[in-house]
């Protein structure tokens, strides 16, 4: 096993197994992953900040077993920022907050390829600062069907004067976010609102959309998963890598891009790989910046 000591912001970190091929069919090693996250750090860190990280670790590679870890490992370096979360004793635990580059690099040294975070910050776990629609296509529907649903969703929300933004899940679907950033918002609000939206979408586009979790309804349709709007749920963070056969990033798309590709062409074309992610992010900036700042109120609640 190889080890390499690095210094980041004056902190020492021993990186191990850099040559390990974590995406074996693609020759994308741990060193590549570390390089990606280091370069994307200034875009991803604001979205991870102060959120309880759920590790999804792939120590043997993305094609092998993974495990989830919500608890911050007790072997963490002393400088890793943490928070206490959980309602009662049984749920109480210490979680990691990826607030700086050194912590981000440390998570990748643990092969936590995918970074998942809740919609609320650790300090206010019952206050979602956004509402999400997780669009999940049931085979043979694909990401292109999701783009159609996402565009209808955008138009519907905009009729209600709500701005939204969209990213690829990095797997098969799309995630549509509505920035809220108001202390008064509760998960009860976002759940109620998103469910009503999902149900009306299903009613009007029954061939394309389902709002029902059950597998039999999801076949050949896009499932609008509104139930992610819950304090106990997490979403894969924007700019996070996903553990598919090839390294794909959960990446923000412009609505224009969606309009140009909706419903036709090669579904894989919408997937963004690490090198493209870096060059696009550097050129266009963070398309999800409004998610962190724009204040919007859910109407009619």
């Amino acid at each position, binding site marked *: 096993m190889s080890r390499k000591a690095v210094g980041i912001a004056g902190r020492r970190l021993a990186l191990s197994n850099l040559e390990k091929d974590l995406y074996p069919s693609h020759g994308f090693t741990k060193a590549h992953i570390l390089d990606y996250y280091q370069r994307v750090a200034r875009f991803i860190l604001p979205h991870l900040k102060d959120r309880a990280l759920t590790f999804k670790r792939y120590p043997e590679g993305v094609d092998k*077993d993974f*495990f989830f870890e919500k*608890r911050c*490992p*007790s*072997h963490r370096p002393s400088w890793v920022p943490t928070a*206490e979360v959980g*309602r*009662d004793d049984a749920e*109480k635990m*210490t979680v990691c907050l990826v607030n700086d580059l050194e912590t981000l690099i440390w998570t990748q040294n643990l092969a936590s390829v995918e970074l998942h975070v809740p919609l609320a910050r650790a300090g206010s776990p019952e206050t979602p600062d956004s509402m999400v629609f997780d669009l999940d296509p049931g085979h043979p529907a694909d990401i292109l069907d999701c783009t159609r649903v996402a565009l*209808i969703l955008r*138009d*519907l929300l905009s*009729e*209600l004067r709500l701005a939204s933004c969209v990213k690829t899940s990095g797997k098969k679907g799309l995630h549509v976010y509505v920035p809220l950033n108001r202390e008064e918002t509760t998960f009860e609000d976002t759940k*109620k*609102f998103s*469910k*009503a*939206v999902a*149900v*009306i979408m299903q*009613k*009007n586009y029954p061939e394309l959309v389902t709002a029902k979790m059950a597998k039999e309804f999801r076949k050949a349709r896009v499932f609008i998963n509104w139930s992610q709007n819950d304090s106990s749920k997490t979403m894969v963070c924007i700019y996070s890598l996903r553990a598919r056969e090839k390294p794909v990033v959960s990446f923000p798309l412009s609505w224009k891009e969606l309009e140009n590709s909706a419903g036709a062409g090669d579904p894989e074309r919408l997937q963004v790989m690490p090198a493209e992610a870096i060059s696009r992010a550097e050129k266009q900036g963070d398309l999800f910046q409004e998610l962190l700042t724009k204040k919007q109120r859910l*109407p*009619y*609640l």
Partner: protein
Amino acid sequence: MTEQGIWNGTISFSLVAIPVHLVKAVDSGRVSFRMLHGKDYSPLHRRMFCPKEEKAVPNDEIIRGYEIAPDKYILITDEELASVSPERSRTIEIIEFIDMKEVDPIYFDHPYYLIPSKGGEKAYRLLTEVMRRTNKAGIAKFVLGEREYLVAVYSTRGTLALITLHYSEEILPDEDISPKEDLVDAGEKNRLEINIRKMMADFNPEKYTDRRRKKIMDILRKKIKQTAPVETPHAEGEEAEGPADLLAALKESMLKVKKNR
């Protein structure tokens, strides 16, 4: 995807290491009920209540105290508790093998099954078979959740079972329970022994059922057939739901969206 289990790791001793995951072996037979508000059937939540202020206490005002005398507490922080939490085990390392017959059932706490993970099936079968034949149990220490447990791993019906054991200091003394004086005469002892022998049978747990549970389930099944269930105010349902204003606004907006497309 394979069943995730409560815990994933390996079970090992000397040169053997078998990937396994842990699943529940028993399901408490308790019929559980949700507590509802009788007024409108809303499900109720538990909150920490302060009797002095007569209100629910928010999380960030709740701390832990160890009671050393009435109204006297030693405070302990989450950090202090976390500092003594054992690190999660990746292996169940068998330290020694024992005869299961030597373990007083009073030590038995909670049973689980160990299921072979991918690639471990062959070694698992071998270990299960050998442990069955030798009738031995492996003793190991193992961290699950926040605690380090003493556990016994043994073979049962072709499967490895793991049972957490109480530590000896958890077992309460029994010295003062049975009467000291031995006043029983030999004839009485004999008669009792004969009676016990007459009642001997094979252990056959299927013969017995939890009768209260069965009766409760019978009542519930009957009620399901006869009466409509009550519903929580915003219960999950098929039809559009939510505040009427929101539904009306969504409907109107949807019409506009469809017209413009």
